[in-house]
Structures are given as C-alpha cells and as structure tokens.
C-alpha cells in the first residue's frame, strides 16, 4: 500500500506493525513525532504495547534494558543530545546483548545548540557496540526498522540496532512509502524469544554482573563475536525481506553506477539521494562517476567496500561530522578498507552539511570535478558549502 507520509510516520507505522511489548521514549526535536504517533496508537488501543513515558533519555534506554532483560520486545527512538544522554546505557545494552531497536533522527550535537541534521550523534555511538544502519529515504527507514528487529534478535547477534534517518530531511519530509500489510510484517518479525529472561522466576539469572580482570576480557570478546556475526545475518535478513517486499536490498551498501566508475563518492544517509542526481548529470556529460552508499555502517563491511572501490581512480569520502583531531570517521573506515589493496584509489575527505547546512547537486558535481585534480591522498580536510 503506497502512502505519502513523513519518515517519522513511516518508522512509527513499522513500530505499530511490529507491536513491541514496551516502548520507552522521551521527546526531543526532531524525534518527538515518533513518540507522539506511538502514544496515539497506544491511547487509541491500536497496540497492546506498554508505553513508558520516561523523564529522560537515560531512563528511556534504562527502561528498555530492564524490559528487554525481563523478556519483552523493546523499541525506542531519540536524537542528538538524547542519544548523548543514552550513551552510557547504550554501551551496557550492547554488553548485556539486548536486542533493542532504536530509531535515531540524526541531529547535530551541541554546542552551539542546533536542531538540524548531521551525523555527530551517530558518530558518538560509533564504538558503543550497537549495529548501525543508515537510511537514504523514508522507504528505507521503514524497511530497515522492520529488518532491524530480525537482525537484533538473531541469537548469533543479540545486539541493539540503531536505524539512522536524517533529521528533518527524512523525518519531516512527506515521501511516497510502500507499506507492507500488518500481517506480513508480524509474520516476518515473528514471536520474540527471550534469552534467560528475568521474569522466568523459576530459573533465576543474575544480569549485569561485576566482572574483574579475570573475566571482563572474555565477556567483551564474546560481544565482539555478536558483531562479527551481524554482517551475515544482515544479508540473510535482507534477502528474506526483499522476497516479501519486492524491493531489492542486496548487500551492505548500494553501489550506484559504480561498476565502471573512475571517480566515486561515499556518503551516508539522505545526501546519497542528492549524490545520485549529481552522478546522473555527470554521466550524461560523459564522466564515469559512481556512488557507494553504506546501509550497514557498524559493523563496517571493510572487505566488500574495498573490493567495490578497488578499480576507482579517486574516492571522495563525505563525513557529516568532525572526528575532531583526525580525519572523518567514515573516511577512516574507507581508508582502512582500501589499505590491503595493492593498487589503492586516491582518497579525499570532505566534511559537509553540519548543523543542517544544505548540500546541493552543484556542490557534489563540483566535488566530482575536483577529484581528477587531486594527485595524492592528503591528510587534510576539505569542506563542502563552508564559508571560510
């Protein structure tokens, strides 16, 4: 069923169809609408979910951890400072191997305070142990919210999954979205099977123990194994989802006109849509350019990204956040991915779109035009749309 809805409504609809046992959520711009839509569903009796309208994001994720350990299917959503407040608990959710699915309406971190999009919030949670997926549009946000549930809950993974969607650009923009039937989604996500839940009082389990140097390392290694299993699970969930939806999700990233490209751009989220227009324009002018848009950012599919970019002369990696004091985080990922290759493309790192600064087709065309002039990889940041 095709509907013209915002990214928020698309995520909220996916959540309604999944119908988790517990949703604990706290308002923040631009995420609030997800909480509002879901509260409407609960208050109108469309879902049986227990809504926990907490007093902070820290408590939102804490309640999610409690509910997930208790044996419930759990979801939440946040943005920016809200994620910053959650981060302590996000690391714990991952360490406790709890399959909490979270929509992250990407917004810049303070200071200065700003409500618009960049990826500094997602980057803050980069090493948290949560799986992170980026959506290009409302359709992908809807689809990956559903897929995230299966990835998170797979016994080989059992980790929190964050579905990133660009604040305002995706969350507040009305787009056509194909929704699946409720029954199809319910069947796809299936029943939640908790592992050693707290509510199984006949089999008491101690959750969140204290581990000293004699065990901490082994427990964290086991957590890494969950991350290592995530890519395989991601692909098999994609395959299954493609079958029920008729939409093609094949691989860790979308490679757009990349196969014979001489110059390529790597970018996360909604700017990939803008980049596709730039690619088409330049292709029409005879320039062989392409795009790589990662869906799966954590764990980072380094081997596959390296292979996909091996034939390219130069790659521009676009980061929508600083990693202050070094190159952009996505750039570092791509550079690492290319390192094992014998013949490596030249790399350039562009910082763009901070605090909701618009990035236009001509600006991305200009990046592509600049690429052939860059003769070697430089440890210097370049900027798109910045007044110097």
């Amino acid at each position: 069923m095709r509907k013209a809805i915002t990214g928020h409504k698309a995520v909220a609809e996916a959540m309604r169809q999944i119908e988790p046992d517990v949703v604990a959520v706290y308002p923040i711009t631009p995420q609030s609408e997800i909480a509002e839509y879901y509260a409407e569903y609960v208050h109108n009796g469309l879902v049986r979910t227990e809504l926990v309208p907490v007093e902070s994001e820290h408590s939102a994720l804490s309640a999610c951890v409690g509910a997930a350990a208790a044996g419930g299917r759990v979801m939440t959503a946040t943005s920016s400072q809200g994620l910053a407040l959650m981060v302590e608990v996000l690391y714990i959710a991952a360490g406790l191997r709890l399959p909490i699915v979270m929509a992250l309406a990407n917004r810049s971190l303070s200071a200065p305070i700003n409500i618009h999009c960049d990826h500094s919030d997602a980057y803050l949670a980069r090493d948290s142990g949560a799986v992170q997926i980026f959506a290009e549009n409302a359709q992908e946000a809807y689809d990956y919210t559903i897929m995230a549930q299966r990835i998170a809950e797979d016994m080989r993974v059992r980790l929190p999954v964050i579905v990133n969607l660009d604040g305002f650009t995706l969350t507040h923009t009305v787009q056509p979205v194909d929704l699946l039937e409720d029954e199809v989604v319910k069947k796809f996500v299936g029943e939640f099977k908790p592992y050693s839940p707290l509510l199984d009082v006949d089999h008491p389990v101690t959750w969140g123990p204290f581990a000293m140097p004699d065990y901490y390392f082994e427990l964290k290694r086991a957590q890494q194994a969950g991350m290592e299993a995530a890519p395989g699970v991601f692909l098999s969930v994609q395959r299954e989802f493609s079958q029920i939806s008729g939409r093609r999700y094949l691989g860790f990233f979308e490679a757009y006109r990349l196969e014979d490209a001489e110059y390529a751009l790597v970018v996360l989220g909604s700017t990939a849509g803008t980049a596709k227009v730039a690619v088409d324009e330049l292709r029409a002018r005879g320039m062989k350019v392409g795009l790589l848009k990662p869906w799966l950012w954590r764990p980072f599919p380094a081997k596959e990204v390296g292979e996909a970019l091996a034939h390219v002369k130069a790659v521009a990696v676009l980061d929508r956040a600083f990693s202050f004091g070094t190159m952009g985080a996505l750039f570092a990922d791509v550079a690492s991915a290319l390192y094992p290759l014998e013949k490596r493309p030249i790399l350039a790192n562009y910082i763009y779109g901070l605090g909701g600064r618009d990035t236009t087709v001509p600006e991305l065309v200009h990046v592509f035009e600049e690429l052939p002039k860059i003769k070697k990889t430089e440890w210097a940041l370049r900027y798109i749309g910045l007044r110097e």
Partner: protein
Amino acid sequence: MPSIKVLAEREEKGVRFTSGHTLCAGCAEPMVVRTVLNSIEEPVVVASPTGCLEVATSRFPGTAWNVPWIHVAFENAAAVISGVEAAYKALRKKGLMNRRIRFVVFAGDGGTYDIGLQALSGALERGHDFLYVCLNNEAYMNTGVQRSSATPKCASATTAPAGEAIPGKPQERKDLTEIVVAHGVPYVAQAAVSHLIDLANKVERAMKYEGPKFINVLTTCPLGWRTPRDSAIQQAKLAVETRYWPLYEVMEGRYKINYKPKERVPIEEWLKTQGRFRHLFRDPRGKELIAQIQAEVDRRWELLLQKEKCFGAEA
C-alpha cells in the same frame, strides 16, 4: 504480620539471598536484604544500581542472588525496574504471564538521594508497581566514604573531611523520605536495621498497595561510620532512640510514628560513639555544632509529630 518464625521458615524454604558475598564483616546490608525478601511471599525480581551491594554480590561467575536480579548502572535502578514491570504488564496483557511477580529495588543512598533521584522521581510519578528500598548508610561507602546528600551534618567524609577550617560536612542531610511522600505514592516508610520485625511488617504492609512503595532503611556501615564491626544494630538503635531516625510510615498520605522513644536521648550519645564525628569532641567549635545538630533533630521530630497529629493514620 510476619514473625521471626515465619521469616525463618521462608528462608529455609528457599534462600533468596545467599552467603558467600563479599560485603564487609559487620555490614548491615545483608540483614536488610534478607528481611525484605523473606517478608514477600510471591516471587520477586530485584534491581540494584551500582554500589556496595552490587559489587559484593554479583562478581562473575558467582552470584549471591537466588532470585532474578539485574544491575545496569548507578543512576537508573528505578528506570530499569520500570522497564521490567512494564514488560511484565505487557506479557500479562498478551496472556503470556499469569503469575504474580513483585518487583524490588535495593539501592544505596548515593544511588537514591543523589545520582538516582531523577529516575526515582520519574518512576514514582508514573506509578509503577514496585518496592524501592534505600539501604541508607549515609555516604558513598563503595567508593571510599565520600559525602552524599544523606550524610549528616558535621560527619567526616573523604570529600568532606574534618579539617582545620571546615569541620566535616557543612550541610544538613536531605530529607528524602518526605520528598518521596510529596510524590503522593501509596506507601512510604522509614525503618532501621535495628528493628527488623518492624521492617518486615512494613514490607508486608507495603506490598498490599498497588503502585510505588518506598522504604528508607538506616543501614549501618561500621567501616564508614568508624564504629566497631559488631556495632551495626546498636548504632541504628541509638539513631532511633535519639530521634535522629524516626521509625514511621505514611500510608496514602496518613502518618504513623511506629515508635516514640519515652526519653529524649541527647544526640551526643550517638555522635560520640562514631569515628566520623570524633572531631566534634576535640574541636573547640564542637559544642556549638552538636547543639546545632540537636536543634535540627528536634525540629524534624517536632515537625513529624505535628504531621502525625494533623494527618495521622488513626485520625
């Protein structure tokens, strides 16, 4: 009301909190934990924030907990139990859970009065069905006796030491019990480790109410209070006798003082037995400071008597 016999029988039937933990010799916490857990008939799920109890009972791969137990972080035990209780309600609605399970938090004063206060307030306001027990030992004992907002005035703590210029903690302790009362929750009480049957009665009464229940238990820490290891019960008892720590409960807004000491035992009698107040008896300013402490004890006791008079359970 649960007698010692009933409590002992329940313990024999199934120990909920076992020995083998690493709490200090003379620590009052296990007595409170066991009494509370044995005073609840139904199955329980327990949450604890970071603190003495948590580190001493859950060292992987061992555990002292024979009931489901969860620790997440320092400031969020009330939020965690909110989530556990919400999941329980959701599973009941779906018909996937038909047993009655009770939810209990054991938290220290740091995790309750200070860093966990926001999460506690939120959980109280939302009305989750749980019992929150504060094991109040009046400082951050787990990290080395730093001052908390439960630390009494003039007590020497490592972050408020008895110095030449400032004789211990300058501020009065926060009256958290009354802050919880102000939330309008159905059951609030103060108890002490010296009065375990009183505590057991309070837990049993508390569990008859739906919604949030809170018991603030004075839980002696011989290490932090600098008293002998065998003094925990005496110390708490003296705190009650001096009216420093009144035993009372507030049921649906109605006050009941459970014990009114016949004689007014001066607070000095309690202070002088503890190393954390020793400086008051050496410092020339000590007399005046003890008088101030006594005045505040008297003020709070009078206020409590007035509250009972105006909003008494029997009125």
